[in-house]
Structures are given as structure tokens and as C-alpha cells.
């Protein structure tokens, strides 16, 4: 089940149609049916059945009005018809029949906006079931509901507000028409006032709506500017950073929201000026220092977007890296790697991406990585995956590129014995990056070239002479190692080395 979900998600992502919705249900086991947690979907209803369900729902309301004459207890009765409808609406066909039925949505709105509290809640649950439909026509049938959903976000019922939020979040991601309507209806100011709620459940739902809105393809031009004009960014940042103390669920949603803003590359100056970089750095340090030995479930859901935000912010050309010259960031990264490596291997490439951005231009981080003795751990990541190999080799190149003193350390650590098997890999991208690294090593630290030859590197290079994209570089390296040590090509490096030692 999980594997098929993953395949479907990957496919959808590659088609840029990755859309997910959350379902908020309060179920008894009896309703859920199976003990294994498998969801039971009700059978579709016939058109007539949907009609008669609507009818009994309306009758139920009329009956309530009668009941109100004196009876305040026994409210179960009146809810029954609506909860039957809610149950039936789990079925996609029933959803489609329901929205096609004339007046159905308006009736539901009538109940949803009534002051009969439990009816209102049931109607909200029905709307929520509809919002979960994968049929865009169902989401669009819900267009008349959005202004009311927004209205109730200013209310005070935690559970009801939460339900409205998840319904909105689901509708938003399904239909551009819904988004186009929500913006003029004032969704951003409403969210901006709602984000000051003290309730974690509300905040998490709000973060969900934001993350859904910000993933929209028109977000960079239509939505992100409005978000930046509001108080939302500073609160988002605050809530992400208080994730360990307050609620991690909300922090996860806001961290993804920030990631969607940052990777749109339209707002990073604004976020940097809010102090996003030091705030997220310090969050990452806290996260790493508080992870128990056994990785707690779900923490990777927060760590992943935080890593991404940091990586992309560092890629801004603002000189911001000066603010975070803190070697503990490297320690945090490796502790996170150690913790999640086995259970959540995707974290490897996310960490290595950040490590690349830290080491690319900064002598500080290259030197700290070596002095903290983290190079052996980095080399251990080399065989994890193709992507990990390329990233590790790139980071090693970043270090080697800094000059002879760095290359000397790489040589001493010993990196070469691990590079030889890498040269034998079938992936030209990995091998190509490995050739780049060897070139830097040989250039800055000729002893490495001599060692390489002693370890049988000659043959390892020769096998790539026939591969078009590698042959030139392989040949160039063969030429280098063919020259006697200390030949003229390397003399400038030796001169430079004396300046460091």
C-alpha cells in the first residue's frame, strides 16, 4: 500500500501535479470498520437515495424547529440524518451526485451558517468530506461556501475553526477557481489574524492552508506578494522556531510554507531581513541537540523543510553567510544525518545540499569540517546513492579547491582509497565529479598523484578513455600522473604551500 502510494506520488510530482489533502475525521472503530485501519468506503447511493437523504435532512431541520418548542435534550435524533449524509459522502460517486442535485450545497450552507451548534458542526463535516473529493467539479461546487468558511475563521470554536481550515486547505489545492475567489474574499488578512490564535490545533490547520496556497503554480505572482505584505511571515518564522516547545505539528506546516515561499525566490530579501537565517540556524542546533538516540517519529518532517530553507537562503547573494559562522551547524548536520540515515535516507541529500552551500565559498566551514574530524563521516556517505555520491564529491571538491593545505588534509585522511572504487562506478556523473576532485588534489598536492598511481589509479583512469563525456578529463589526469613529481606544472603550488605551513 505504501509502495504504491510512493510510486503514485513520484509520478504526480514529475508531472507537477503533486496534490495532497488532509482528512479530519472523528471516527469510532465501528464506523471505520476494519481493525487493520483500512478505510471502508460506503457504497455509492443512487440518485433517488441522495434525494431522499436530502429530504430527510431537511425534514430533520424542520423537526428540530418543532423540537425547540421545549425539548433541549436528546439532540442525537436531529443529527442523525446529517451524519448519514456525512457517511455517504465518503463515496466519490455520491459526492458527485450530491453536488449535482439542485439546491444541495445551498441547503448545506443554510445548516452550516445556522446557530444550531451541532447541526452546524455536522454540516461542516459534510463540507469537509466534499472538500476531500478528487473531482475538481466537486471542489468547484463548493465555491459558494468559501466566504462562510472564512467568516468562521474569525470565530472562537477550536474544533469548528479547525474543520473550516482543513476544508479550505483541501479546496484550495484542488481548484484554481477557489484560489482566485479566496484572494479577493480576504483570505490573507483572515489568516493573518487567525495566526495569533493560542490554539495549536488552529495554528496547524492554518499552516496547512498556507502551505497549500503557497504551492499553487500562480503563488509567486499572486499569493506570495500578499503574504509578504501581511504579518504572516514573522509569525510563521516564530512558530517554526518554537516548534520544539509549542506544537511540532504547526511548526511542520509553517516550515513547509516557508520553504515554498523561499524556493519561489521572490521573497528572500524580505525573509532575510526578518532574521530568518540566524533563527533557522539556531532552530537546527536545538533540534540536533535534542534528538534522542532513537530518532523520534515525525521530527524529519520538520527538519527537512528547515534544511531546505537554510540552503536556499544561503544561495542568495547577500553576504549573509557571515552571520552564521558557527561550526556547530556542521555538528548539527552530522548528528541529524546519523539519526535519520537509516530510517529516512532522503535526509542525506537534503543535509549534503546544505553542506555544499556552506562549504562552497567559505574557508571557515571547510576548515571546521576538517578540524572537527568530520571528513571520515562524510566519506562514509559516498556509497549511499548516486545523488549522495555526487554531492559528497562536490563537497570534497569545495574543500580541495581551497588550496594545498586543504588538499594535504584530504590526502592524509585518506580519501584516495575511497575514490578508487568510485571511479569504477557505472554512473558518468559520479565518475565525472570524481575526476574533477582528483584534478584538484593532484594540482594542489602532487603527493596525492604519486599515491594514486601506487594504488593502481592508472588502470582506473584508463577504463574511462572510451567514454565520450569522460575521456578528455581521464586523459588529462593520465597525462598529469605520467609526469615526474615536481615537474614544472606543479611548482607554483609548492611555492604557495610554503605560505600556509
Amino acid at each position, binding site marked *: *500500500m505504501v509502495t504504491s502510494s510512493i510510486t503514485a506520488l513520484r509520478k504526480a510530482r514529475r508531472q507537477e501535479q503533486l496534490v495532497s489533502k488532509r482528512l479530519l475525521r472523528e471516527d469510532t472503530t465501528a464506523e471505520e470498520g476494519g481493525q487493520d485501519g483500512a478505510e471502508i468506503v460506503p457504497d455509492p447511493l443512487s440518485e433517488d437515495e441522495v434525494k431522499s437523504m436530502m429530504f430527510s435532512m431537511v425534514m430533520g431541520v424542520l423537526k428540530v424547529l418543532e423540537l425547540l418548542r421545549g425539548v433541549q435534550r436528546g439532540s442525537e435524533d436531529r443529527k442523525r440524518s446529517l451524519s448519514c449524509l456525512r457517511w455517504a459522502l465518503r463515496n466519490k460517486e455520491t459526492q458527485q451526485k450530491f453536488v449535482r442535485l439542485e439546491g444541495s450545497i445551498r441547503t448545506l450552507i*443554510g445548516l452550516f451558517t445556522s446557530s444550531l451548534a451541532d447541526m452546524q458542526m455536522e454540516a461542516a463535516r459534510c463540507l469537509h468530506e466534499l472538500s476531500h473529493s478528487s473531482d475538481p467539479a466537486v471542489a468547484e461546487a463548493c465555491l459558494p461556501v468559501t466566504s462562510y468558511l472564512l467568516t*468562521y475563521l*474569525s470565530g472562537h470554536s477550536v474544533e469548528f475553526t479547525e474543520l473550516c481550515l482543513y476544508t479550505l486547505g483541501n479546496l484550495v489545492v484542488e481548484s484554481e477557481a477557489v484560489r482566485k475567489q479566496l484572494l479577493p*474574499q*480576504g483570505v490573507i488578512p483572515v489568516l493573518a489574524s487567525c495566526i495569533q490564535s493560542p490554539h495549536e490545533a488552529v495554528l496547524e490547520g492554518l499552516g496547512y492552508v498556507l502551505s497549500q496556497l503557497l504551492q499553487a503554480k500562480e503563488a509567486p505572482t499572486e499569493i506570495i506578494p500578499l503574504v509578504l505584505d501581511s504579518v504572516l511571515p514573522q509569525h510563521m518564522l516564530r512558530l517554526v522556531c518554537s516548534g520544539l516547545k509549542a506544537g511540532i505539528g504547526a511548526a511542520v506546516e509553517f516550515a513547509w510554507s516557508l520553504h515554498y515561499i523561499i524556493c519561489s525566490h521572490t521573497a528572500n530579501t524580505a525573509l532575510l531581513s526578518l532574521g530568518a537565517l540566524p533563527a533557522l540556524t539556531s532552530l537546527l542546533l536545538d533540534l540536533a541537540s535534542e534528538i534522542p538516540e532513537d530518532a523520534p517519529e515525525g521530527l524529519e518532517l520538520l527538519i527537512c523543510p528547515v534544511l531546505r530553507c537554510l540552503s536556499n537562503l544561503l544561495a542568495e547573494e547577500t553576504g549573509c553567510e557571515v552571520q552564521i559562522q558557527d561550526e556547530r551547524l556542521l555538528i548539527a548536520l552530522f548528528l541529524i*544525518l546519523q539519526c535519520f540515515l537509516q530510517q529516512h535516507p532522503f535526509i542525506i541529500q537534503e543535509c549534503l545540499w546544505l553542506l555544499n552551500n556552506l562549504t562552497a565559498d567559505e574557508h571557515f566551514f571547510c576548515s571546521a569540517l576538517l578540524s572537527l574530524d*568530520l571528513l571520515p563521516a562524510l566519506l562514509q556517505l559516498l556509497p549511499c546513492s548516486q545523488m549522495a555520491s555526487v554531492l559528497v564529491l562536490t563537497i570534497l571538491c569545495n574543500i580541495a579547491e581551497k588550496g594545498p593545505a586543504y588538499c594535504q588534509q584530504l590526502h592524509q585522511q585518506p580519501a584516495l582509497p575511497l575514490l578508487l572504487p568510485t571511479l569504477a562506478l557505472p554512473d558518468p556523473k559520479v565518475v565525472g565529479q570524481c575526476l574533477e576532485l582528483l584534478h584538484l588534489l593532484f594540482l594542489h598536492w602532487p603527493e596525492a598523484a604519486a599515491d594514486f598511481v601506487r594504488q593502481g589509479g592508472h588502470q582506473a583512469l584508463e577504463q574511462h578513455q572510451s567514454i565520450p563525456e569522460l575521456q578528455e*578529463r581521464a586523459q588529462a589526469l593520465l597525462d598529469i600522473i605520467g609526469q615526474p613529481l615536481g615537474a614544472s606544472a606543479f611548482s607554483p603550488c609548492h611555492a604557495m604551500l610554503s605560505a600556509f605551513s
Partner: protein
Amino acid sequence: MPARKCPPPASRSAGCACALAPPPSRAMLSLPPGLRRRLREGPSSPPAPPASRAPLPSPAPPFAFAPRRLRLGPHHPLLEDGDVHRHLYLQGVLSSLAEVAEKPKVSEFSCHISGCCQAFDTLEGYEHHYNTLHRNVCSFCKRSFPSGHLLDIHILEWHDSLFQIMAEKQNMYKCLVEGCAEKFKSSKDRKDHLVTVHLYPADFRFDRPKKVKSGPKHVSSPKKQGGSMPMDVSMETSEQFQVDPMEIGPSENMEIPQPAASPGPSVPEERLYKSRIPSTICFGQGATRGFKGPRKKV
């Protein structure tokens, strides 16, 4: 993390972790000792990196490596696995962040607002009931509103005797959308604005214009008409169940499915309702404007 996200965890993450990327062998990462301690100790003075130096020559072809920071867009392949993990979580395939917390059941209790005897067995149920019916209630006409913002506007427009006078001189009708500062000459202008600018539905239920010539003075003198209508009675006997047709009224405001959609028995009942409620009656509208509410303030 609310506990009610579902579906519940079925076969847990060990499976999906493997499925995400099956690497050859991933032993534990061995790190030098004492890293955790160093992390907690706070920033130490960094070791001085080798000082400034002459820039190294850029690589000559065929080599091309130049260090660069990567800026990745949302669709970059590096982010695929992480995105998939996020969406597995959203779709409820992963376990949620917190264990399922049962809502504590409490022994049945009643709403403490006088005249309301609604009973509850969960605090959440009571909370919602209170917020729906008792929190944003107009003390003059007992109508309840979904937000304080709408209640404020209602009180100003319906019960402030100065409002009409002021409204003749300046734009006084505030836009209902929070965050919009526009004001209008009349509620009609406001409605136009809501519909054209904010794409609100033309029949937005919380924007019923005040009828200047109101019908029978319903709320102010409920006893005169009471008894004949269930809704009226309800208001008399229990204010909290005030069923305002603005909010839920079968004859005028609530959409009843077409007769075709409603089998037989509905018709008489519907008619019965219609015959009972004169269309001129607007429930919940205080006939006495200004600040002399017919009932004691809540």
C-alpha cells in the same frame, strides 16, 4: 498535532523508509566522540582558517569545477524524496506526530447560560455550542454572529441611534471583510462592493439589510405572537435556540430542495411552515432600535 487526522497508521514507516530509496548498505554513521557535548557548549572560537591568499587559478579545460551554492526550485529532483515523504504524511500514510488522544468524556452537564439547558458530555461540544450561540450575541436583539467583527457592525448599524444620522452625512457602512477599510453610503452600496470586489455571494447571510419598516415587532414583544410559531416559542422559552430565519429559516432563507427532490410528505409540512410565517416577519430584528434592549443584556 491533533489526533484525529486519519487514516490511522497502518503498516508503519519501516516499510516506507525502505521503499523511498533502497540504498545498498547503510550502516550507522560513525562520528567522532563528544560532538553532542560540543553542540551544547555553545559556539567556540572557530579555528582560524588559513588566512587570505592569492586566488587560486580557475581550472583549465577540460576540467570545469567551480564551487557554487545551489539554489533549488520546487521541482528539482533532489527534493523528490523529501516531497514524497511530506505528501505521505499529508495523506495519512505515515503515523501522525502524536498519539491519538481520546477526548475526555465528562459527566453530562448543562450550559450555564440562563434559559439554556442544552446538555453536553464533552467540553468540546460545549465549547462549540457556547461559541455559536452565546459568544457573539447582540444584547439587544439576541441575534448571534459568527465573529465579533460582524457583531460590532450589526450593533452599530442596527442599534446605535446615532448611526442613521451619521450615515446621512458620511459613509458609515463598513465593509464586512476583515482587513478591508472601505465604508459605504448604504448597505446596498456595500453589498455591491462585496459582490464585485470581494466576490461574496449576493445573498451573503450575515449581510441582511435592516428593513426600515420592520414587520411585527417580533423580538420586542414576543408574547403577542408567541405560541403560533414554533420558532417564536423557541425564542421565548430559550433564547439560546433563537432560530433566526436569516440563519436558518425554511420559508425564505434556507434553500429547500425543489419539490421534485423531496418526496411526498415534505410538501404539506413545507406549506404548513410557509403559512405559519408571514413573509414580512423578520425574526431577530429588534424593533426598538437604539440601546433599550427588551431583555436584560447577556
